[in-house]
């Protein structure tokens, strides 16, 4: 028992001697305030040098992580851009150039939804999606100016699509096409036509009302 106590005191004394004679040099932050007060200035300077070396390592690691981050980001953006470049044609379908759609638009919607649904990835995906969407929008305008549009493996023209659209509209109005015969795409087209028709009807009604008012006056 007594021997243990003596040995323990010896150890403590040795530690103190090492500390205060500068044999035990540690990084600056690892010293306690009461230890620092008793340390020789030369030991503190050496300890600061150790901390400075550690800072260099930290900075190097931070630079490596940053470089890795930039490389990964560049590669991801390129990959995402390629994905959309390959798939954007699916969204350019004749008259109906809307980006949001069922079926053909599944990939983009899925991706956009993913961006919105994933808070951890949102800040990465959202700006890319936004950027790609504006690119696609610009290309939609360009496509409108060009007569030929490629849809999958088939080539068609805006005029053909416009004619098809008008024919389908007429068939709907005449009741030639029955509801159960409609595909998902046609159902959507019909919904759009109905909407267009409603707007037209509203405009006609409004114009008639104005005319009636004028006549009354």
């Amino acid at each position, binding site marked *: 028992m007594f021997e243990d106590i003596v040995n323990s005191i010896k150890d403590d004394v040795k530690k103190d001697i090492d500390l205060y004679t500068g044999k035990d040099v540690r990084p*600056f*932050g690892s010293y306690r305030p009461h230890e620092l007060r008793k340390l*020789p*200035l*030369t030991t*503190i*300077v*050496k300890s*600061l*040098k150790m*901390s*400075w070396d*550690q*800072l260099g390592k*930290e*900075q190097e*690691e*931070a630079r490596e*992580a*940053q470089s*890795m*981050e930039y490389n*990964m*980001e560049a590669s*991801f953006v390129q*990959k*995402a851009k390629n*994905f959309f470049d*390959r*798939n954007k044609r699916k969204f350019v379908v004749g008259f109906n150039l809307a980006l949001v759609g069922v079926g053909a638009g599944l*990939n983009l919607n*899925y*991706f956009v939804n*993913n961006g919105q649904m*994933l808070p*951890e*990835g949102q*800040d*990465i*995906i959202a700006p890319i999606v936004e950027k790609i969407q504006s690119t696609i929008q610009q290309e939609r305008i360009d496509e409108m100016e060009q007569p030929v549009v490629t849809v999958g493996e088939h080539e068609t023209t805006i005029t053909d699509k416009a004619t098809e659209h008008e024919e389908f509209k007429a068939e709907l109005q005449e009741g030639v096409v029955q509801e159960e015969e409609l595909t998902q795409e046609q159902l959507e087209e019909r919904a759009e036509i109905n909407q267009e028709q409603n707007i037209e009807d509203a405009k006609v009604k409004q114009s008639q009302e104005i005319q009636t008012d004028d006549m009354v006056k």
Partner: protein
Amino acid sequence: MRDIKELVSKILLNEITDDDMTEEEKKLVMDFIEKESKEIEKETKKAQKEKEKSLKRIEKLNKANEKLDKLIEKESK
């Protein structure tokens, strides 16, 4: 009186001890320690924060990349 550059060099090369310095020189070294320790602490925290930020973003990019891979896989089917 020696300047701080010379004093620190000699300390790091074990050429002088506290006893070899005048009171004025000791004051110079103490000021140096105070200023440098704050600077090192600040810069260390900054580097650690930047590293942590990059690592978090790498993790996010990994997750986003996995999602994109799934989409690409779906696209090829």
